[in-house]
């Protein structure tokens, strides 16, 4: 079942907008992640889709039918909550069958569906236990089973893994992804964790400042972020953002220091710019006489190093390298770009990017002019 969001907006007091202009179409069977920092309105958006919170303006269509005036029950969807929302006084079996019973499904059919769902999440042996007798991971599985048992084809998940430890989270990530594909669910998954969004989703919606920043596939979002927020939100360690000034119009070069210069594929009008460089896209040279930075600290992660470096113009950057290096704090080094970078305008919007030899054209010259003006 497809879901279409048209100009959806939310306000509680008719003055401050919590969400504005949300537009997208989620296709049947798609794993759609909504990601953003905490407080960006992503849970609110999910609850509006579920029908738990009224939509202030705009339209929501499920299978090309407006559902804006339908109560949650008639939208035919299930939801998995951050804190699982299990009923403590019911055992696992009754918890999983709760929604089916509420929808007055015949007893025998409920039993069959519940048994099947419990089998899928590997909890059959624990079906008579109460939630308090289960571990965190098992409770999470009960919540999943409840969604599986339902015959709704749309499933909403609100940060379902945020209470699990890192190891379990990794395991559940692939399990949820596998279940979603096996059952052909249309899944809307809210998370603040960019890694979850990147690894699980078919498409990602990035929310910040009440608005959609970008909608696209994980690859697209990583390689062509639409602005500096998206650029820094995805990827660990974060993308470095360097401030640059372009003194005259028709300049193609942004100079941070004599060694750190960035050649823009487009003519740039005079003004302030930001250059975004991912930590892996810096070249670090040691033991040279001419240097432009010094090492602050080094973190060793087994297969790579994260090196915190302070440039002489006082900007701090992170550099990741997998080469075996021996660095001391305060050692002088030379930092040069590898020719893979993004150029953002003063408001953070992407106006160009360079990927090695290939350059872009995502934003045309005319558009660039328009943005600047």
């Amino acid at each position, binding site marked *: 079942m497809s879901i279409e969001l048209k100009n959806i907006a939310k306000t509680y007091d008719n003055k401050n907008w919590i969400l504005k202009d949300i537009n997208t179409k989620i296709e049947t069977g798609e794993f759609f992640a909504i990601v953003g920092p905490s407080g960006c309105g992503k849970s609110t958006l999910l609850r509006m889709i579920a029908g*738990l919170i009224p939509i202030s303006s705009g339209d929501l269509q499920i299978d090309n039918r407006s559902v804006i005036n339908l109560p*949650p029950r008639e939208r035919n969807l299930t*939801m998995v909550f951050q804190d699982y*929302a299990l009923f403590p006084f019911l055992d696992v079996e009754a918890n999983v069958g709760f929604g089916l019973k*509420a929808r007055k499904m015949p007893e025998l059919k409920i039993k069959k569906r519940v048994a099947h769902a419990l089998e899928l999440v590997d909890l059959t042996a624990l079906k008579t236990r109460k*939630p*308090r007798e289960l571990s965190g991971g098992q409770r999470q599985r009960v919540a999943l089973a409840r969604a599986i048992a339902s015959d709704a084809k749309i499933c909403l998940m609100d940060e379902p893994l945020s209470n699990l430890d890192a190891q379990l989270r990794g395991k559940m990530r692939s399990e949820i992804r596998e279940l979603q594909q096996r059952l052909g669910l249309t899944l809307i998954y809210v998370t603040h964790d960019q890694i979850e969004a990147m690894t699980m989703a078919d498409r990602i919606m990035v929310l910040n400042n009440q608005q959609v920043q970008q909608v696209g596939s994980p690859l697209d979002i990583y390689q062509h972020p639409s602005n500096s927020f998206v650029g820094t939100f995805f990827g660990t360690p974060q993308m470095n953002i360097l401030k640059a000034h372009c003194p005259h119009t028709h300049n193609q070069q942004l100079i941070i220091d004599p060694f750190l210069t960035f050649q823009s594929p487009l003519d740039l009008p005079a003004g302030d710019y930001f250059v975004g460089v991912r930590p892996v896209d810096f070249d670090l040279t040691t033991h040279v006489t001419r240097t432009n930075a010094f090492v602050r600290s080094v973190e060793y992660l087994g297969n790579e190093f994260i090196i915190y470096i302070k440039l002489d113009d006082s900007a701090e950057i992170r550099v990741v390298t997998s080469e075996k290096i021996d660095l001391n704090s305060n050692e002088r080094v030379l930092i040069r770009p590898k020719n893979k970078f993004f150029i953002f305008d003063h408001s953070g919007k992407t106006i160009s990017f360079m990927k090695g030899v290939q350059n872009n054209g995502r934003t045309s010259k005319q558009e660039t002019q328009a943005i600047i003006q």
Partner: protein
Amino acid sequence: MLNITEQSKKELWLRYIVLTILAAIILIPFLIGFWTSLLPTEDISKGSLWSTHISLDNYVTAFTQTPIIRYLLNSFIISLLTMLSQLFFCSTSAYAFVFLKFKGRNLLFYAFLATMMLPFEAEVIPNFTTVRNLNLLNHYSVMIIPFLTSAFGTFMLRQSFLQIPGELKEAADIEGLSHWKIYARIVLPYSRISLYTLAAYSFLTSWNQYLWPMLTTFSDNFRPVQDGLRQLQSQESFNNWGMIQASAAIVVIPTLVVLFFGQHFFKNGLNEGALK
């Protein structure tokens, strides 16, 4: 290190001594009362508490020669009905205060709370006039109707309902449960400890009523136990203290039963596992 353990040992001793003294202060009147209920009245009047004439005669007399069984029945009916109606009305009004959004909800709740500040004695006269005009005097209903609901019970259940995680309500909304179903299937089971507490509290409060029944009942047919006990004292030409003590002991038994079995439910942790 040694000093610290000695210090804490001393403290522990001190604590137990204080607790023992307090327990004795509370328990001794009970024990004396129970003990004297086993003694003949002559011995009690003579003040010889260490008598050896122990028997259950007083209990037999109480049951056979006084209307105590009738009193017990009256009290039981009144307390049970009061308890049930309070459980129902307090829980439904608390549900409204927590889960329904309506204009003036908070104002209404504060008005509710304000009635708690008013001592019962202040309401006695207007209440009495009302029930007399309704021709309810000397009947069970006069002891039940003014206590059908209680502001305290509503307040207590509201606090308990507020603890119910919002996600449980949302999960129920997704499945389309009506308010009555949410009330019956989620809110009541989730808050059952508070409900047990309120049940015990309202049963015992009703059981121990004295002033109101004294004003409104005139016959043994409707008189509850506490007033019945008083009645036993003044009816006899001489006070049969042994028998009165035995009756008092009988009257206390339901209180002890409620508290004893209630204890089991008043433990925490039954709602663990709803979240996380």
